[in-house]
């Protein structure tokens, strides 16, 4: 009896959780300019997106920044997690695991205004590169988390030792055995980092400077301008992209475990 009411509540709860997304999805096909009354099915808002040069530019900028940031975060994360798994330093072990998670703990607005004052103070112009570096910092905990878990599960396998018995030195064993085995987790972490960078608004908003318009910043300025069905269509595309990235990351992680 009780479980029935609870299941009913859970269903209502999930309906609430997905209502905004569904409404947006539904009305992205609505053939009306202003209001949310159904006026027939259309794909035209998606067409409008494709012809919007500013939007495509923002997409390209976001992709470039996300690629750079995820590469940076992956390399930094791989080195750090290798050290943390293979030989956790006795001094500073506990410190490192909370220290490397610090970007998750600081509210993003603090990071945004902090980085803004920092870059301006040291006289570095705000541009594409500063934004990518900041995104790499935001994404670091995600790449470390993903790679670390995989390396921990590899640790018991003694494959690295086997490689060394066969004449490889530590570097070769790392390069030819550990790295390929950890690859799915590295790629999975990189995809998460990519998503973090691609979707980041708050930090980017403060430090993007004048010339750099990323996708979320573009969405923000469109929203400031007013409600249009074009934003519905755009939001749906972004949502689809996020889902694809997350599902791929998850599938890779599962495949690494098998």
């Amino acid at each position, binding site marked *: 009896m009780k479980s029935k009411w609870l299941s009913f509540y859970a269903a209502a709860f999930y309906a609430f959780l997905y209502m905004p997304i569904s409404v947006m999805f539904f009305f992205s096909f609505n053939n009306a300019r202003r209001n949310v009354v159904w006026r027939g099915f259309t794909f035209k808002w998606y067409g409008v997106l494709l012809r919007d040069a500013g939007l495509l530019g923002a997409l390209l900028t976001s992709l470039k920044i996300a690629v750079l940031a995820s590469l940076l975060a992956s390399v930094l994360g791989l080195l750090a997690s290798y*050290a*943390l798994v293979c*030989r956790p330093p006795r001094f500073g072990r506990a410190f490192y695991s909370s220290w490397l998670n610090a970007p998750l703990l600081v509210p993003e607005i603090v990071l945004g205004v902090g980085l803004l004052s920092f870059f301006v103070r040291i006289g570095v112009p705000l541009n594409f590169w500063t934004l990518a570096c900041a995104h790499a910092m935001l994404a670091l905990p995600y790449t470390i988390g993903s790679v670390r878990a995989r390396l921990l599960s590899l640790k018991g396998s003694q494959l690295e030792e086997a490689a060394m018995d066969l004449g490889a030195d530590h570097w070769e064993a790392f390069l030819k055995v550990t790295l390929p085995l950890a690859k799915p987790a590295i790629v999975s972490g990189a995809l998460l980092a990519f998503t973090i960078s691609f979707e980041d608004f708050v930090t980017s908003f403060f430090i993007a400077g004048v010339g750099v318009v990323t996708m979320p910043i573009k969405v923000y300025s469109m929203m400031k301008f007013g409600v249009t069905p074009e934003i519905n269509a755009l939001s749906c595309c972004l949502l689809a992209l996020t889902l694809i990235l997350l599902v791929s990351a998850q599938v890779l992680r599962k495949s690494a475990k098998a």
Partner: protein
Amino acid sequence: MPHKIKKFLAWLFSGKSEKASHILILPASFWLAFFLVVPIMLLLVLSLAQLGPYGTIIWHPTLENFRRVFTPLYVPIVARTVAYCGATAVLCLLLGYPTAYFLSFYAGEWRDTFLILLMIPFWTSALVSIYSWIIILGRDGLMNSVLVGSGALGKPLDVLNTPFSVILGLVYFYLPFMILPLYSSLEKIPKQYIEASYDLGAGAFQTFLKVTLPLSLPGVFAGFILTFVPCLGDFLTAEFLGGPRTYLIGNLIENQFLMAQDWPFGAALTAVLLCAMLIGLYYYQKLEAAELAA
């Protein structure tokens, strides 16, 4: 590759030397120090500086900026932020507890699916969900067109730009932060405890009140901190779903840095926020430690 470099790499990845481990972690540490710690330190220093003419900064230490935060002009904003975030955390708790309870005890084999479904809105951009709330709540939005169209209302309701819409947006965004810690502490409760309570004659309600709820309190506190604290720095929700009368500290900070160009005052506001965050984090760590010890 020169022999020396190869030997160095072999040593670095040997897993035998702690020094090598420190070196491998160094790039990541450097990155965090440079892009996270130094900027925050700079903000703290900046909060003690003074504003000169034309947005320049005079490096003469003063507590004036902090005094200003607590003047009648800004106290209402601080109080409003605390009130809205408190309301958000409480509502998240009330709405999220039954869901967490369902996930822990009744979801069965669908549990993982439900947990993933819970996280998807969290991973989507906050802008996107805020935008969909505008479509739903706006004056000629979905809610009003349904209510007026069906004759339930004579004229449309102005829901947008009220405290209600801001808190709704915040609750929606921070719900997963409440449910996940609740779920993880509910899930840890041994089922035998609950059975024992029934065997001893307690009803469902009494069992919940005397057994389940007390045992889930660490999750309740953790969830409260994890929703309340990040909520304090939110500015997007109030910017789009609210108006000037519902602005929060986050909006004030944004305004000081991007419009008013009073960076020292903005930095002081941020420092206050950071303080609240550190206090929250301290209690959260304590909770975690107590959980591990138990």
